[in-house]
């Protein structure tokens, strides 16, 4: 918004206020004329000053009233134009711009490119195989870990079943002991990741956060990337956000990582010399062999993929693309993949979260 348009808008908004209402009223002047002259309010100099101020105010108001009709029309037009610009501009474009971004009116979920059968599989939770992993995540959420000290200690010491739990049990609290019901406490959480961790100065995605919780709070070894356990917990947390509109908040700490992620999305790589955007922005919806190219949106991951015949994280999917363009395949959990994941989450703003999705 330029200075000139801002000035016009301000004028349009404040004009209807009666300027003279801020100044001495006419009835006080009558009081001055009939007063005895002893009060300091009736001092002749003050009265003169008073009249001058009111005269100035009347002139001021007359000048504005003279041009009121044309100013009103101009101001109204400007305000309407500004309003239209605000509405027409997609929200995410205020954060992201560049050749990799899909305009908000053209954004499509990956499931819209899939067959009717696959869409039906994702739509019905009793058909969706991803719920096998969610069941495991739910069990893990309650018990904390498969080698829960409470269960192990009572088995090892042959303690009677009604004896108090082993004292070490509190060293390995379950997820539920802090977070209770994941569908309540984890609602909207998955879309806050990847986040910037200022204490370690690195990006942390949801998988990384779950492992931080495991090592620092539960005092358990971290779960391996792409293990059924970690996928189960990630999918369980993501499920709590299903149906919410993906919305990110950009803070200053994220900006350098986001810029690096964007550069990776837009940079040609590999023997095929393709950038992500060449397929997933410029040619989305076109065919590549027998496949339809999707827009590369992240909102359904972790997802069950028929090609893998199992659940997989977004980073596993990105690695499949890197393999496709014959580029160096970055390791799971690497800075490169997490920055790309961060960029994709901003790029996908406005889509409803589908996790756990089903993809071809």
């Amino acid at each position, binding site marked *: 918004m330029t200075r000139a348009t801002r000035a016009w808008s301000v004028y349009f908004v404040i004009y209807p206020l009666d300027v003279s209402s801020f100044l001495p009223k006419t009835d006080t002047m009558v009081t001055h004329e009939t007063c005895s002259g002893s009060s300091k309010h009736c001092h002749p100099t003050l009265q003169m000053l008073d009249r001058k101020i009111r005269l100035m105010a009347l002139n001021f108001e007359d000048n504005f009233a003279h041009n009121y009709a044309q100013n009103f029309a101009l101001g109204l037009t400007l305000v309407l134009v500004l309003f239209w610009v605000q509405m027409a501009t997609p929200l995410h474009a205020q954060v992201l711009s560049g050749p990799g971004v899909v305009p908000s009116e053209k954004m499509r979920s990956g499931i819209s490119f899939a067959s009717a059968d696959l869409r039906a599989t994702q739509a019905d939770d*009793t*058909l969706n*195989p991803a719920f*096998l992993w969610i*069941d*495991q995540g739910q069990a893990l959420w309650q018990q904390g870990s498969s080698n829960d000290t409470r269960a192990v200690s009572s088995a090892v010491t042959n303690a009677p079943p009604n004896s108090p739990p082993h004292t070490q049990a509190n060293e390995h609290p379950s997820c539920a002991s802090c977070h209770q019901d994941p569908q309540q406490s984890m609602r909207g959480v998955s879309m806050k990741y990847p986040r910037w961790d200022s204490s370690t100065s690195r990006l942390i995605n949801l998988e990384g956060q779950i492992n931080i919780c495991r090592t620092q709070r539960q005092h358990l070894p971290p779960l391996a990337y792409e293990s059924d356990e970690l996928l189960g917990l990630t999918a369980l947390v993501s499920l709590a956000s299903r149906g919410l509109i993906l919305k990110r908040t950009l803070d200053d700490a994220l900006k350098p990582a986001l810029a690096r992620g964007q550069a990776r999305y837009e940079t040609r790589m590999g023997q095929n010399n393709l950038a992500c955007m060449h397929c997933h922005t410029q040619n989305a919806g076109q065919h590549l062999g027998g496949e339809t190219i999707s827009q590369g949106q992240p909102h359904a991951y972790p997802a069950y993929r028929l090609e893998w*015949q*199992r659940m997989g994280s977004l980073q596993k999917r990105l690695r499949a693309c890197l393999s496709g363009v014959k580029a160096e395949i970055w390791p799971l959990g690497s800075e490169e993949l997490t920055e790309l994941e961060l960029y994709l989450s901003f790029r996908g703003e406005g889509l409803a979260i589908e996790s756990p999705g089903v993809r071809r």
Partner: protein
Amino acid sequence: MTARIILPPNPKAGVKMDIRILIQHPMETGFRYDISGAAIAKNVIKSFSLDLDGETLFSGELGTGTSANPFLQFSVILPHSGWLKLQWLDDEGNTGLERVLCNLSS
């Protein structure tokens, strides 16, 4: 390995209902080779059965033509409420067990 026995909401006595079974299993066909060229041993679910309080409702044998994480569905009229028990056995000799309580409303 885990499994799901999915019952319709509010199953009723004497009314035909669909029971869905989903078993987590790689269903390795035996036709594939690993990165060093060695054959990957066949490992599929050989047999499975679904019982209602010990009485077999549905059983079968699966082969290499079945996808990973097989999904099975069949229709049945249950005679009474009870525990449904799903058991399976694969080529490696691993067995699986999943139980769910089915309460029929009249």
